[in-house]
């Protein structure tokens, strides 16, 4: 009897599971745990988007513990694990990315965009990367071993939105099994923006262009800041209802902040609520780092295409700025701020500023780059709206 109990305990060790002796577990779990540790290393030692990658990495480790059943249903008791519950509560339903987007809205200052609205076009141009990567995913599927359908391709494309909650929202709706690699790619490349963008920016601009000084931004009144989120919301409601969950929650957070009469709500959105949801969202996303959906050529394809998306978005943003200078030479735009249109707030705007100061240390581009930077958030949400409206219809 005591022997059988010891045997039971031994058969319930993780070691036993890693050796593939329990159905549903195997060496793949061990590999994924190592991937989780690598994410923790990148987050802690390298400072890659630590809030998200620490939680995603830890979620990946916990979810891959054999017979831990933390992100699945325990077949013996029928109980769901705690990360499974969090996933069902907030990712499957789309609630967590929406709540994060409220907090992002409450943290965002659209002032620079209101002062120079034409930078919205830079935020539009940089979304081209999304669709290039989408097409790339479909093309890569011709290679044996890689296989993406339209849902997967759209989710991969949205990595190019350079916006975590948008990517998670779209992928959760269209291709939840790919949530792990897509979220990791999105946050990793956002952290790598200072490495990915500068060479592209330098290659596409001349020395003279990089020296362009922009006119000082005009002051923006409080009333304009209050009316702006309402304007965007109205446009979105009239033209693209499928984008309203994302755009609406962003603008809700922003209005609560800017209206000045609900500061305690704005403060909670930015802090307690956002932090709680970030913890839950990170762990849940990490739980989608399953061996069966991660250890295949598709993941390599996703990582490659994510890079393509970022690179193309950066490039089209810069080129759009050069085109705008051609069309309206009286109000010159430094093309270096075009790359900030990918979003990745505020990192991409800082990169614009830094590259600009390489040529002229007295040229302060940061505030100018914040315009396209926050425009990129709106642009990605609009692109997400198109994908969410059209892809299910095409697949029907």
């Amino acid at each position: 009897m005591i022997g059988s109990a010891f045997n039971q305990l031994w058969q319930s060790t993780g070691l036993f599971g890693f050796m593939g002796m329990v159905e549903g577990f195997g060496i793949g779990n061990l590999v994924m745990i190592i991937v989780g540790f690598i994410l923790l290393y990148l987050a802690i030692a390298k400072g890659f988007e630590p809030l998200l990658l620490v939680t995603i990495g830890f979620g990946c480790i916990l979810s891959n513990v054999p017979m831990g059943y933390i992100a699945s249903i325990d077949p013996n008791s029928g109980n769901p694990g705690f990360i499974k519950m969090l996933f069902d509560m907030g990712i499957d339903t789309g609630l967590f990315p929406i709540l994060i987007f409220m907090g992002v809205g409450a943290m965002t200052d659209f002032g620079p965009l209101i002062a120079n609205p034409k930078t919205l076009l830079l935020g539009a141009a940089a979304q081209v990367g999304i669709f290039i990567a989408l097409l790339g995913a479909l093309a890569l599927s011709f290679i044996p071993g890689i296989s993406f359908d339209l849902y997967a391709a759209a989710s991969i494309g949205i990595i190019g939105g350079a916006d975590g909650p948008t990517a998670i929202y779209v992928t959760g709706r269209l291709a939840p099994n790919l949530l792990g690699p897509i979220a990791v790619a999105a946050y990793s490349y956002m952290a790598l923006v200072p490495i990915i963008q500068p060479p592209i920016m330098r290659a596409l601009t001349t020395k003279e262009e990089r020296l362009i000084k922009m006119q000082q931004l005009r002051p923006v009144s409080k009333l304009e800041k209050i009316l702006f989120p309402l304007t965007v919301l109205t446009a979105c409601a009239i033209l693209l209802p499928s984008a309203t969950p994302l755009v609406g929650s962003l603008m809700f957070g922003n209005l609560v902040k800017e209206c000045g009469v609900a500061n305690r709500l704005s403060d909670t959105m930015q802090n307690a609520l956002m932090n709680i949801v970030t913890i839950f969202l990170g762990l849940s996303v990490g739980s989608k780092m399953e061996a069966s959906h991660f250890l295949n050529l598709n993941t390599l394809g996703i990582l490659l295409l994510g890079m393509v998306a970022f690179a193309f978005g950066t490039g089209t943003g810069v080129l759009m700025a050069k085109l705008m200078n051609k069309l309206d030479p009286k109000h010159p735009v430094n093309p270096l701020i075009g790359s900030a249109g990918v979003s990745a707030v505020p990192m991409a705007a800082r990169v614009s500023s830094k590259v600009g100061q390489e040529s002229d240390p007295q040229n302060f581009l940061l505030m100018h780059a914040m315009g396209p930077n926050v425009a990129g958030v709106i642009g990605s949400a609009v692109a997400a709206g198109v994908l969410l409206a059209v892809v299910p219809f095409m697949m029907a």
Partner: protein
Amino acid sequence: MVFLAQLPKEQLIAQLENGVILMVLGIATVFVFLTLLVFLTKGMSAFAKKIAPQKKPAAVVSSPAAATLSVSPASDADIAAAIVAAFAKSKE
């Protein structure tokens, strides 16, 4: 490494066609929407100026010193540090 089953060629071509359509549609929509937003924002600003003509600027956004997203409010420690610094300075 798991090798995934391949989709049949006709389906791959069909979805590539869909992808091209999606690209055209998506890029067009994004540009139309954000271009429209340029005009709406300008209109909104004009409207705001009309109903509340301001003398003093409410907020100047171009100063490089203010050039960070106000992502985190000053912590307690920051406040304490600021006071201590102010205090120390006043003793000079």
